């Protein structure tokens, strides 16, 4: 495999949280590499460090030691503003609890990532409407999140994640709050995106979700225990 195709590369990543003076190691030296266009599932029991790994990949969190390369660029040393910039331009997040802003409409929620890139309002709106249509919510753009079903809310979240044309979509238990039918639909949508070329990393403990992926990283006690 070509080295230039590496999108996420962990080199002996250690993450330690300090909680009230107690050191809590969450990642104890993780090394892995994910290539452009891959669909990877990260599995493991709760507390195994899979969400922390995802947060570091998404530049929401930083490593305690070790190195993290995103598209070959070492980002372990970047400051808060630079990390925000990367999140803004390259990453799309999808959360278990959708994380839509309740007082904003569907359209405004989708538009949000481009707001912080200070993209022209008109262009932002056009793109948001297009994405809303793509996820099948073209007729709901004026609704508030509370007026939608869970599956619909997650579709809004996916549209929002696509707003900045990310190179990497990170989904943390994307179907965790959904019934199996909606869950399947969401996974289908995500797989479609992956087929179009976006790298997709899904954290889950559900084997039914993991089976869609091309590769599964199994986490246990802060280490990768198995890979297939």
């Amino acid at each position, binding site marked *: 495999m070509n080295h230039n195709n590496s999108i996420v590369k962990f080199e002996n990543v250690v993450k330690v949280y300090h909680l009230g003076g107690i050191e809590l190691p969450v990642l104890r030296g993780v090394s892995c590499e994910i290539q452009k266009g891959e669909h990877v599932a990260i599995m493991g029991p709760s507390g195994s460090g899979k969400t922390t790994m995802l*947060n570091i990949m*998404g530049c*929401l*969190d930083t490593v305690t030691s070790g190195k993290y390369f995103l598209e070959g660029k070492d980002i372990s040393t970047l400051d*808060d*503003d630079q990390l*925000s*910039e990367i*999140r*803004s*331009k390259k*990453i799309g*997040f999808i*959360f278990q609890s959708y*994380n*839509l*802003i309740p*007082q904003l409409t569907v359209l405004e929620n989708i538009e*949000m*990532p481009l*707001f*912080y*890139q*200070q993209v*022209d*309002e008109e262009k932002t709106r056009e793109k948001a409407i297009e994405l809303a249509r793509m996820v099948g919510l073209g007729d709901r753009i004026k609704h508030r999140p509370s007026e939608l079903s869970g599956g619909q809310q997650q579709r809004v979240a996916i549209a*929002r994640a696509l707003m*900045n044309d990310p190179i990497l979509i990170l989904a943390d238990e994307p179907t965790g709050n959904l019934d199996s039918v909606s869950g399947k639909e969401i996974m289908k949508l995500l797989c479609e995106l992956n087929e179009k070329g976006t790298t997709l990393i899904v954290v889950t403990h559900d084997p039914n979700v993991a089976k869609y992926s091309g590769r599964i990283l199994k986490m246990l006690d802060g280490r990768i225990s198995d890979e297939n």
Partner: protein
Amino acid sequence: MKINIAHLIRIVRHGWKNIWLHKLRSFLTVLGIVFGVASVIAMLAIGEGASYEARKMIESLGSNNIIIKSVKLPADAKSQQVSFLGVYGLTDRDLRKLETIPSVVRIIPAWEMEDDVWYYEKNISARVVGTLPDYKEIMNLSIKTGRFFDYTDLQNATPVAVIGSTVRTSLFPAEDPIGKTIKIKSSYFTIIGIAGEKIFTGASESFVAEDMNIAVYIPLTTTKLFFGEYEVKRGTGGFQSWERNWVQYHKFIIQVSETDKILTTASLISDILSQTHKKQDYQIIVPLELLRQAERTKRIFNIVLGSIAAISLIVGGIGIMNIMLAIVTERTREIGIRRAVGAKRRDIINQFLTESIILSASGGFIGILLGIAIPKAVTKFAGMMTLITPWSILLSFSISVAVGITFGLYPARKAAGLDPIQALRYE
């Protein structure tokens, strides 16, 4: 960093939306600012009005002048229950002596009496002033129509009169008074001029001014000839209680050569007069001193009301800070989401700071409306003059914005400082 105006407008619009979402809460939050700003404007308007009035009044007395008034002592009043001729006040001798002071340019003496002025059936109780032609100039008296009497009138003691504006309106509501004849006691005077209106309010009446609009000016020689140097005051208990006093002059208006010399001249005058007037039957009024006193009063007034306004603005600011802290907690998750999709700390600060500025500025705006209404109401119901200056509106609005920034900064920084991961997990 470039400033993107369109982006700024969007931030403000978003902020406004969030505030409008909780109308009642927002309104209650800004009440402190509303009252603070309103009281700043109202206080400045009332203070400005009062000082403007005082300044105009005192300027009308001439800031380069010193005025000496004859004062009847209360001790004399007692002994005059029965018809008795009292003697008090300023005399020719005083006039001659004071004229020798080098810094004195001129002295205009005036003899005055309060009496009814008649035109056929109409009458008005007015102040009859016998004086010199220079009186007009020294007192800044304007003449609306006709003329003031001159030295020829003075020399010939002609029976002419110049009337104040109030006298004119009550005796001649529809006629041209020039050339008409009015009657005072048993003498007739031809009106040759009408004085322009002079600002007068009852407020400062006690210490200096008389209403110059209810006056009739007559050459000093004429009053001496017709009325002598007596004043007769009507008592309450019939003829027996009438007072008769011999007064040569009721007033000297002394023009001083330079403003710097006013205070020394005033003390010189006091020295000279105290030698011949063992009983202090005179009063020295220095308009410049009064002007300074008025300024001092205004300053104290401003300090007192300014502190009240400052306190209510601080309390208002704390109210805003309090609600902003609550809002930040309430929207912790939103902050996490925004950070996750790429908002920098600065973006979060801007968002919350904008909201608190919008809050305080809208409070400021309502306060300005209220602050304009209050002085208008004061003028209408209390009859006090008020003056709303544009800079007081600008000042108070800037203060309200400054309050928003000052008290919004801490909550905004707190919001920006939140750990995005913790914030996303917040329930």
